[in-house]
């Protein structure tokens, strides 16, 4: 069990590496938070603004200052949203994205796993082709087409569901579906692949030979091992889902973190961008760690 603990202990180090890399990468991009369409009233005003955010210090100093603040749990003021700190912005938006992401994950697994299993069990048959077609649509229809399409049909055409905003449970259905379907297709592909891989392996045939019923063989011997590719895909997928989707949150006007990933970069809101990077990388490392742990548990043959 030692290596898994070591891996967990390594997470802060990895996050630090990511943060440092991002910090300097971000500063290498042209344009800055204080470049505006309208020039400042005077040089004096501009200098005062920069001084407030320690912009007049050398970069290494800003880096150390930032690092020190992060260790103390302060992610700094947002450079764009001047009445908010990054902690404040993340505090408001993270719960929303987590909720949406968790529900979309439910849809992705709930649709993807059965679909993939069915396709694999009927490999080459019509059920397989139908499932493949469905997943194909899910894979190649981009979210920015799927979302408006669902809105047009279910929201405006039939008028069943709200077209945007975040409030009652009804408002969550369309964004959850949009995000979920997109990932469900991927999950189904991986599941089908995992199943096919396992179904032909000798230990399944051995289990069949032992006289176990087909259902028992599949549930006990096939599905767990077939989950291997799905699970190793789950880490990054779940990190993407939980950290918020730019397109979906923008389209449905959902006050989550997704908007900040793109927007804080485009407005050079460095502190907010760094906040997002930290949030995402912590999430990703923890989820990857968990998915690797889960892999080991599901497939005892994996040893490190």
């Amino acid at each position: 069990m030692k290596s898994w603990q070591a891996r967990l202990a390594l997470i802060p180090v990895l996050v630090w590496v990511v943060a440092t890399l991002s910090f300097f990468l971000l500063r290498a991009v042209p344009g800055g938070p204080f470049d505006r369409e309208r020039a400042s009233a005077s040089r004096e005003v501009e200098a005062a603004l920069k001084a407030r955010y320690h912009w007049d210090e050398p970069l290494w100093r800003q880096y150390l200052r930032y690092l020190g603040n992060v260790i103390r749990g302060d992610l700094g003021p947002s450079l764009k949203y001047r009445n908010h700190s990054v902690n404040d912005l993340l505090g408001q938006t993270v719960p929303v994205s987590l909720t949406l992401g968790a529900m979309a994950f439910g849809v992705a697994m709930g649709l993807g796993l059965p679909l993939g299993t069915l396709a694999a069990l009927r490999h080459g048959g019509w059920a397989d082709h139908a499932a493949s077609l469905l997943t194909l649509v899910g894979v190649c229809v981009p979210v920015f087409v799927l979302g408006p399409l669902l809105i047009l049909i279910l929201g405006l055409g039939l008028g069943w569901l709200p077209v945007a905003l975040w409030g009652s449970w009804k408002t969550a259905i369309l964004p959850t579906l949009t995000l979920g379907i997109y990932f469900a297709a991927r999950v189904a592909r991986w599941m089908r692949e995992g199943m096919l891989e396992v179904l032909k392996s000798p230990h399944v045939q051995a289990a069949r030979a032992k006289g176990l019923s087909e259902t028992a063989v599949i549930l006990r011997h096939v599905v767990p091992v077939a989950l291997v590719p799905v699970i190793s895909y789950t880490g990054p997928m779940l990190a993407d889902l939980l950290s918020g989707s730019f397109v979906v949150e923008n389209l449905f006007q959902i006050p989550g973190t997704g908007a900040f990933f793109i927007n804080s970069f485009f407005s050079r809101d460095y502190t907010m961008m760094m906040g997002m990077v930290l949030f995402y990388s912590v999430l990703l490392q923890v989820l990857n760690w968990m998915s690797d742990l889960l892999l080991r548990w599901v497939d005892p043959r994996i040893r490190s």
Partner: protein
Amino acid sequence: MNTAPSSPERQALLRFRRNRWAVAGLIFLLLATVLSVFVPWMLAIDPNQGSDSPFTAPDGRHWMGTDIHGRDLFSRVMIGTRISLMVGAVGAGVSLIIGVGWGLVAGWRGGRTDAWMMRSVDVLYALPTVVWVMLTLTLFETRCVGWLSERWPSSIPAFRLAAMMVSLGSVSWLTMARVVRAQVLSLRERPFILAAQSIGVPPVRLMLRHLLPNLVGVILVYLTLTVPAVVLYESFLSFLGLGIRPPQASLGSLIADGASQLNPVRVRWWLLVFPAGLMALLLAALNGVGEGLRSALEPREGDGD
């Protein structure tokens, strides 16, 4: 590799040819490639040439209608297909070479090597993609374009495209590496590998002849996911103004343009349906080929492994 009459290669080819979907997919892909390269020449319609008939619905003259500048959508879709095929191919190539190689080595060597390799993947993974792509593209613009414009000014667009594809490709292999590694970890302990190891098969040969064939399935699945992902990511970049430079077009940028037609006021369906439809067909074909390859290349029980 030998080429005896009933070599595994031949058998694989036979199995591939027996798969109707795979053959149809392959023909379609080849056809699309050839068409996208030659049709724009044959038509003698400049895909970037505007006209005085904007937004005409498809008719005998403009098979796919025209856009806001009165440009012929058919020739733009053809040009766009060419660029998207290139973008997809580069993304797939990078995933295939770096991603598979990385995962294979990490999974096989295990231990410390594995830890280092996978942790560096984790680090790269956590870097924001937009920042990375943006940064490489801006650095290219500010550092390389000036230099290039003194030497080969006319080929700057081609270099710019190449820079974008490399930049996209450089982040598309990470998931592949993860997935391949997980699979290798599981395969490593299987009897046939252990047996091969015990009779002293050298590691490189073991990886290529025994591990890789068993990875064909996951690799193909991931490729059929990567190609659309890269192509669509390019369209997202175009949407943000970082992708294909106007007036050039890619299938992705055409779809991104057409997506605004999904509105309740006025729908010019052809602007979305044709590029998106072609994209779906291409991916379906790709999928079919992937399936065919998979059943053709995967080792069967009793094939001697």
